[in-house]
């Protein structure tokens, strides 16, 4: 993954991020950044720790856009798992694993703390470019939008680990569902006590899988 041309392109994009503020609405630039296919090793080699620190210190607005867009894309993939976007989501994940440790380095940095933990609304333009029916998602998940980005990130990552088709075989997932249902009929009393909770979880997961199959 990641030929020499895409590496050169990526280096160019990063140097632009470091040298000037890029408008979040400049979709061509950001699209190109997210769609350049690179492996984790490449990303770690191409973005030096000093570059990340420089980005944090000198271009906070770029950093903010970068982080917000990455989280928004991960969230979007969880909400509407089209296989086309999986590679892009993985790119986001790799980039985040490079950036975040440095963002946590200085705990007194109020900007970054605010970026992580302030409740905010994800601009519609970010999600709208991902898929046509984003407008529906917006109306459905209104309460999600006001959660801090950090919470969205953690939840999206947990979901991503079990997205059928990328991380789990669909058939294995189905097996697991059957298993969960069979556990509901457990005879042991200590398990019966928790039956309500399990039933709830089961229904929730089946509904999730149902919508995902339907989406595909």
């Amino acid at each position, binding site marked *: 993954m990641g030929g020499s041309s895409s590496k050169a392109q990526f280096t160019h994009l990063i140097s632009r991020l470091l040298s000037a503020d890029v408008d979040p609405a400049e979709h061509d630039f950001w699209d190109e950044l997210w769609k350049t296919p690179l492996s*984790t090793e490449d990303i770690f080699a191409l973005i030096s720790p000093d570059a990340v620190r420089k980005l944090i210190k000198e271009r906070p607005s770029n950093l903010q856009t970068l982080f917000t867009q990455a989280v928004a894309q991960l969230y979007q993939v969880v909400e509407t798992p089209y296989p086309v976007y*999986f590679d892009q989501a*993985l790119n986001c*994940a*790799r980039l*985040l*694993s*490079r950036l*975040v*440790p440095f963002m*946590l*380095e*200085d*705990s007194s940095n109020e900007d970054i703390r605010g970026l*992580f*933990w302030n409740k905010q609304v994800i601009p519609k333009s970010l999600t709208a470019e991902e898929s046509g029916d984003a407008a529906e998602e917006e109306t459905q998940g209104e309460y999600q939008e006001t959660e801090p980005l*950090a*919470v969205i*990130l*953690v*939840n999206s*990552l*947990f*979901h*991503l*680990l*079990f997205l059928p088709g*990328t*991380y*789990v*075989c669909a058939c*294995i997932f189905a*097996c*697991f569902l059957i*298993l969960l249902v*069979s*556990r509901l009929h457990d005879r042991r009393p200590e398990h019966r006590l928790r039956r309500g909770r399990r039933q709830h*979880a089961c229904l929730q997961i089946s509904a999730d899988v149902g919508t995902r199959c339907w989406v595909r």
Partner: protein
Amino acid sequence: MWAPGVGSVEKSVAYSTQYDGNRVDILRVLIAIFSDALYQSPSSYDCCASLWLEVATSVDAPYADILFYSLINVVLGYDPMGWGVPYGNLVAKDTLKNLMETAVHVLVILLDYGYPLRPPAIDEANPTAAHPIYVSPDDTEAQGFNVFRRLLSNIESVDELNFLFKGFSRLLNNVHQAQCTYLPYSITKIDVEQELLVLLWKCLEDIPKFMPYVLRYVYFP
């Protein structure tokens, strides 16, 4: 679920290794976002300080139970022997080892958050103020509540304890085996024995039935 073992009654849950690379990538992001404890000094370390971990280990974290069982099964179900052929590790690329090592990191980080869950019986026996801080398993709103600790302490069937014990002994024995073999570097050597020891400690601490099981096994194998 990624692998069979704890938490799955059926043995039919098969390994699915084709997505290992993707899983490792996502797990790495998780490690990255939980890394803020690195920037605290050891003396001021507070096991409940990380807001990230508080979100991740709260009771409404999605798929927490599947995640926990997947991680622990991937770690303890890992077999360093591979094909059983000397130098087989140099011929075949072992993606599962990579996943196992990342998984054990995430698992230890997740289990480290919060306070231990103590059964109320011990609490009544020691009503003095000196006992360590703990959280009741039902008090999901309390500070230091960790859903993963609760899942860990729910492991109780003999099969599951056996799986844990066999996994720990196989993996920890691997360090010794890999060093003492006649053919240097012929056996895959796992590099995470320290994390495994931490995990073993967590299991002994949080699973009430694990310690008696291990002691009984050692005396009457």
